[in-house]
């Protein structure tokens, strides 16, 4: 393990003699929310994977996974309520993580075992191959806090094309079957206990391919589907930041946060 230690929010395992990097969210207590600390660990894991993979001749693969009830529940909203500038900071950091995943010079597989919401869904869209369990859900429930998920549209469109309208605007989450129909999920694993094994098998299947061919076709797809168009990534990030820092968003976020704090 690259980052062994206590109280980690992410585990980063290097398997198969350095070929396979498994990065796993493991902060079930906060449903793998993207907090400042989580972003720090994600950045570090992706940077470490990227630099070691870039130096390898042999095939490599990154597997993004999660343990617990959720794959990733999106931004740590408590931090956004406490500090009005945090939404902008988180969006910037999410954009960085998405770009790192997309520019990883090898395939990135996502194993989605539970809800992937908002920023969590954005991370999934940045992966190349998405494998989902039956409890996976995909949604951008951020219009409720006055925030536009525009930041995610270039990569979401890369997977779903026109289905992005449904995914981005829908007020209710999509289940794994619907997400598969729209192209956001590529393989559905019916047995939740089999997701780990299947996502490892798919990753190892990729390790048998030609590494230069994989890196090359990934670069071509990135250019072809517009998901790495820097102008679009910058402009949609700016659009999300503008909505996230608006009066509408502060008011809706405060109201949503207050309702979340009530005892259920």
């Amino acid at each position, binding site marked *: 393990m690259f980052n062994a230690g206590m109280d980690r929010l992410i585990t980063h395992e290097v398997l198969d003699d350095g070929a396979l990097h498994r990065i796993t969210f493991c902060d079930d207590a906060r449903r793998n929310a993207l907090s400042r600390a989580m972003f720090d660990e994600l950045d570090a894991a992706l940077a470490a994977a990227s630099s070691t993979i870039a130096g390898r001749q042999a095939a490599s693969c990154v597997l993004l996974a999660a343990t617990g009830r959720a794959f990733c529940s999106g931004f740590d909203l408590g931090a956004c309520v406490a500090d009005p500038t945090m939404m902008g900071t988180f969006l910037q950091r999410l954009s960085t993580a998405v770009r790192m995943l997309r520019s990883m010079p090898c395939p990135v597989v996502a194993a989605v075992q539970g809800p992937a919401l908002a920023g969590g869904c954005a991370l999934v869209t940045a992966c190349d191959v998405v494998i989902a369990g039956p409890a996976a859900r995909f949604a951008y429930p951020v219009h409720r806090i006055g*925030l536009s998920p525009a930041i995610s549209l270039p990569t979401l469109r890369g997977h779903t094309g026109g289905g992005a309208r449904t995914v981005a605007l829908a007020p209710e989450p999509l289940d794994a079957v619907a997400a598969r129909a729209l192209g956001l999920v590529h393989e559905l694993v019916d047995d939740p206990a089999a997701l780990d094994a299947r996502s490892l098998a798919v990753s190892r299947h990729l390790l048998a391919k030609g590494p230069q061919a994989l890196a090359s076709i990934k670069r071509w797809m990135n250019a072809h589907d517009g998901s790495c168009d820097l102008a679009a990534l910058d402009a949609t990030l700016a659009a999300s930041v503008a909505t996230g820092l608006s009066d509408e968003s502060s008011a809706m976020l405060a109201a949503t946060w207050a309702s979340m704090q009530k005892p259920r």
Partner: protein
Amino acid sequence: MSTLVSLDITDGIARVCMRRPEARNALSRDLITQLRSTIEALRSRADVRVVILEGDGKSFCAGMDLKAVATDPVAMGDMLRALAETSLAIRKLPMPTIAKVQGAAIGGGCGLMVVCDFGVTHPEAKVGYPEVDLGICPAVVAPWLVKKIGAGPARAMLLLGGTMSGAEGYAKGIASHCVPLDQLESATMALATGLAKGGPLAIRETKRWLSVLDGSNDDAAIREAAEISAKIIQGGEAQERLAKMWGS
């Protein structure tokens, strides 16, 4: 002119209803004109959060009412241009749009469903683009289909013509929701109510970017496609097939 399109706005949800039930809401010149002006008037309404497009009676919309102008091919071309402008007006609404589709959504009617952000239908509905069966070119509605399901699937659908069930339309991605007919109204309203709870500025920004990224604002391309349809419908092949269908 009688009222062929009604508008009701309640709690931020606008319902635009085509009202020619006796003709399965076939798109006559007057209906298209009224639909376009109703839609365009909604564009500046900041209080409207969601627009539902629906049809009175058993069907959403049976398509273009070409028979009414059977002896006037030039009028047919003009109706297709008007359909293109109406589709553009729907796409440019800044708030989310939902087509509530019962019964039939055929040809131009299917085009109206597909240009909306969401299409809610039921398994037994009849949807699709049978234009080529009649010698008509569906270019006028093709851009929205390509944007919705991708060029490859759209190519096959438009060339094969015919119609399909609502269930199949959902499986192919031209409808976003498919529910039992007796839940069509409640499912549509649940979707509309959920959308209306979103921050209006945020949701408009999301929709704006969806349209920027998928090329929905390319008016010239849409109008060019309409010209192609207008030209073909005025030609001998279409006119012969239409005359044969009408038995004239």
